[in-house]
């Protein structure tokens, strides 16, 4: 890798002064973020804070208007999703990019199929997919099942396993627990924990509901109005503190709305 990344636990990803505007709307004002190798970073923030814009920049979908991005210590310009993927930055989207009509193992190898020209090496793909899912502790009835048969958590697990299998070094999980039951959520959190134990994959979890993800994250960043306003190791913060921060932000915004001149009263609005 690069000389600037200092050994194990070195830097996986760094974002400096990234900004993005859409027309007159500033989605990201000035984002600074650092992700160490093998680290799990929780990126939280309320709706409209700029989470999805940041993710779309990191996965190569949007290009930032300003700022610099470093992958493994080297500055990069992420030209496309494909390009980011070749650099080892992969995103598991909420829509999962799985094809319902295809089997689990075909999904695992989607667009990276093993071929013994001209035919697919189905037997090898089946075996490798089964083995890889087993290694990752993902339990599904059969790799030959259509993905449509599986539950939300299993689908998510397969999408994550696929990214890891494709040598992703930096994994962006976009709201991995959205619309998922407690048991399903635990399945995903276990998966992230296993990834952390492997140590070669760094993860950013984007979440709306931080209560659940706190337990797997090493560090928490809070994104507010397009900037990171809070950055602490998980051990030094709590759900309570994070809740207070978000609520304070909400109250401040409410005060600003209720009173046209916010400088006249810095205290939160007394009413609810």
């Amino acid at each position, binding site marked *: 890798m690069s000389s600037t990344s200092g050994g194990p636990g070195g830097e996986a990803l760094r974002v400096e002064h990234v900004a993005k505007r859409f027309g007159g709307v500033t989605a990201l004002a000035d984002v600074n973020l650092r992700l160490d190798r093998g680290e799990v970073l929780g990126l939280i923030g309320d709706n409209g804070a700029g989470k999805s814009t940041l993710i779309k920049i990191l996965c190569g979908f949007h290009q930032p208007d300003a700022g610099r991005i470093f992958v493994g210590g080297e500055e990069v310009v992420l030209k496309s999703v494909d390009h980011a993927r070749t650099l080892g930055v992969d995103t598991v989207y909420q829509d999962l990019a*799985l094809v319902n009509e295809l089997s689990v193992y075909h999904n695992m190898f989607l667009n990276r199929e093993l071929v013994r020209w001209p035919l697919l090496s189905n037997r090898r793909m089946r075996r490798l997919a089964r083995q890889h899912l087993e290694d990752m502790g993902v339990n599904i009835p059969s790799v030959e099942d259509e993905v449509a048969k599986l539950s939300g958590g299993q689908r998510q697990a397969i999408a994550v396993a696929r990214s890891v299998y494709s040598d992703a070094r930096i994994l962006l999980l976009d709201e991995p627990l959205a619309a998922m039951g407690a048991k399903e959520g635990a399945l995903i959190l276990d998966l992230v924990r296993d990834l952390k134990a492997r140590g070669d994959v760094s993860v950013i979890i984007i979440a709306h509901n931080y209560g659940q993800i706190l337990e797997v994250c090493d560090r928490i960043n809070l994104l507010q109005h397009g900037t990171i306003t809070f950055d602490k190791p998980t051990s030094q913060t709590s759900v309570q503190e994070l809740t207070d921060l978000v609520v304070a932000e909400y109250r401040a915004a409410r005060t600003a709305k209720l009173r046209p001149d916010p400088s006249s009263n810095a205290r939160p609005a007394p009413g609810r």
Partner: protein
Amino acid sequence: MSDTVDVAARVEPAPAGRPSRGLPRRVGEAFLRRREASVLVVAVALGVYFASASPAFLTQPNLVNIAQATAPAAIIAAGMVLVLVSGEIDLSVAAVFALAPFNMHYLTDYYGVPILLAIVMALAISALIGFINGFITVVFRVPSFVTTLGTAYIVIGIVLTTSHAYPAPIPEAATETIRKVFGASDYAHLIWCLLIVAFFHVLLTRTRWGLHTIAVGGNPLGATEAGIRAGRIKIGNFMMVATLGGFAGILDAFRISTIDPNLGGGFGIMFTAVSAAVIGGTSLAGGSGTVIGAFLGALVLAELQDGMNLIGISANPYFLILGVAIVVSMIANVYLSRLRRAGRT
């Protein structure tokens, strides 16, 4: 999924780990799981019925008739399934069916091109029309229904204008052997049809192209995110169905020994091919379909038409039955795929 399923999978990951069930039952279930199963049952049942109703049904000349009626629709349907699975449709293929034999005729009789080369060039022109269909659909984002409706009329217009709406004879340059190979002999249709169906079945189920076709139709956004070039897949499939349409047209021209501007009946053979695909279990929504099912669908349609003719029912209720068959098979399709997803079949 419940925990018990997970545990079972962990203990016994092999999918064949159900020794308690009898072999016949397992074979039966494996059979029912195949989407082609129901239409095969219908095809066999129709065969049995018509054979018992009319002694002429199983005679060799009649079987040749059925084969020759099945083949053009099945050949086109093989390509149509790929287009449908990738989430598009091609309405222009019947027009290409009519155009290809004329191109062969123009090239040999007016430009002195050797007959075999003329056939290849006629197929290349068909493929070009397919390319145009795909290009307009993919690049200009015109729904393929509209794109191919337009090109269908354009191609029909070209056929009628250049031929002055008169039929033409098969080129003199076509030797006896060539005529026989390309459709004049009893079994040419059947052999070509089986080869093409087998090839496209393998293409759809065992190759990257087929897998990507399913992915593009099943989850367009997801397929693109995985880096699959959806446009290329779609354009390729349009080119294949058009080439098959042209080829089926040439086979039929040699069979009836004349080149007819009304060959394919404007849109007729295209609708037959789509019907065959749908009856065979292909979903118009994209993402699923089978080439063998479409072949069986074409066989069912040919059996119906031929059998009703033999037992003296007028041809008129044919469309009535065809319509019912399409609607019923579509309902069965939706219902069965829901069952399959629930893991019950």
